[in-house]
């Protein structure tokens, strides 16, 4: 049984080591007659400890791309690797933490037991990793008082936080999040994204984060990948050169506003191009 480590500040980003490599990936759905290409020639790398957001019109293939990286579906062409290994190998090593769009907690388990789940599943892959103490991770997500509660007894925001804690608890090398805050109201969203920002800044992992909120993408990310649709492809990759650690104060800065304006207009161009 590997020792459960205490929460500790993780090393800063390892500047140049590649975490995730997506190269020239193609994905299509449907039969021979009604085949639809959803992703066409998508290439993307995420460095270790880098936070990358995916943004783009709805239906452009963001979730599809995330599922390919998660190993939940197979590409028709191209390849995906995680730390130089196939997605399958990475999953065997429990290298992937997934935060789905809905919290997807098990209603019959307490919050603590939900967050402990990834430790008990596929226990062979626990050897030699720094498992976190589920109680401590819940405390650091502000859920210390709710350990013995059941998901239905918590608000949507708290459930989503528990789902994020569940993804961090087994110390995966890459986290995949598909619009984790989209079901929350605006006040709650902001609180949750700040919580994630704080936690991630002291526990840096590679993250691929799907969102449809421009401010959310900017405040969290190192890079923003802007996707276009029909077929889904990368239109532009935007560097977010804002200093870290970041906090709410950043929203008010000129640099943030300038970047927000830029990303919004880039997004608008992509949407207009799709309409023609």
């Amino acid at each position, binding site marked *: 049984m590997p020792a459960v480590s205490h929460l500790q500040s993780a090393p800063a980003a390892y500047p140049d080591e590649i975490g995730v490599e997506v190269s020239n990936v193609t994905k299509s759905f449907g039969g021979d007659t009604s085949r639809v290409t959803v992703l066409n020639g998508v290439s993307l790398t995420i460095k270790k400890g880098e936070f990358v957001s995916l943004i783009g019109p709805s239906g452009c293939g963001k979730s599809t791309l995330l599922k390919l990286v998660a190993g939940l579906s197979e590409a028709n062409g191209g390849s995906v690797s995680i730390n130089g290994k196939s997605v399958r190998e990475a999953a065997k090593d429990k290298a992937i933490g997934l935060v789905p769009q809905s919290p997807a907690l098990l209603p019959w388990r307490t919050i603590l037991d939900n967050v402990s789940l990834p430790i008990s599943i*596929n226990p062979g892959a626990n050897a030699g990793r720094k498992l976190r103490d589920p109680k401590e991770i819940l405390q650091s997500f502000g859920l210390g008082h709710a350990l013995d509660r059941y998901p239905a007894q918590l608000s949507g925001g708290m459930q989503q936080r528990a789902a994020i804690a569940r993804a961090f608890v087994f110390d995966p090398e890459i986290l995949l999040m598909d619009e984790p805050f989209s079901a929350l109201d605006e006040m709650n969203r902001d609180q949750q994204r700040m919580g994630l920002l704080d936690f991630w800044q002291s526990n840096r992992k590679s993250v691929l984060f799907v969102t449809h909120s421009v401010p959310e993408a900017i405040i969290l990310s190192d890079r923003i990948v802007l996707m276009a649709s029909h077929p889904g492809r990368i239109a532009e990759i935007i560097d977010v050169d804002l200093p870290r650690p970041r906090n709410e104060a950043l929203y008010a800065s000129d640099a943030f506003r300038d970047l927000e304006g830029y990303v919004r207009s880039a997004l608008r161009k992509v949407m207009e191009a799709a309409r023609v």
Partner: protein
Amino acid sequence: MSDTVATAPRRNASGFTMARIVFDWGPPALTFVIVAVLWQLVAINNPYVLPTLDAIGNSLASDPGMYWANLLVTCQEVVIGAGAGIICGFLLAVAMSELPIVEKAVMPLIVVIMVTPVVAIAPALVVAFGFGMLPKYIVTGLVVFFPMLVNSLAGLRDVDQKALDVFKTLHASRWEIFRDLRLPGCMPFVFAGLRIAMPLAVVGAAVAEFVAAGQQAGLGSLVTIAAAQANLPVTWASIALLCLLGVLLVSLLALLRKRILWWSDEDVIGR
């Protein structure tokens, strides 16, 4: 914190007052009283149609041992027959959900058996297996088998896809997915199946006894024998006991459900 815990179920003081009790129990009690009065009116004016309630009560009181013995036989059929049917139905559902080939191979046969009236099978089983308990177990088992199979299968298939995605990214084994996701997740459906199966189990046992009446005891046999002799009080006392057995089973099930399935009842957990 702004997003504090949703309010717990409120048990306000008035929940246990007299007014509350009257409000909850009054209307159904009134219905029963009205039905009882109507029954008595019919029974007194038509002695060959219905026995009076007091005649039924007297019959029960005059020979409790006989009723008890017959009730036990029917209970035994329900417990063993329905128990086996429930377990088999659930296990086959597990096999079908885990191995599609099993479903493909077995489902057509299941459908054929399902549309065959059990009432018609019962005499054939008696011929085949004699007047002992076995044909009664089989008939009782058969009637509960299908609702269990169909509901359990629906439950095992109705997994939360997003939760399944989480399990898959962890490279969970099929056994882990079954143990931690499908099995607990299918319980609401299993209980829905049981809710249908329990009253049916009593029907199955009674039907089997009709067919094999006279040989082995049982409330169903008692009904046929007494009816043939136009002994209305015994007939209706037996029917009342069958009904009581059904109510008891359904109530036990509701208790069990509350213990096991509290998490799926939103009014219990208080959202």
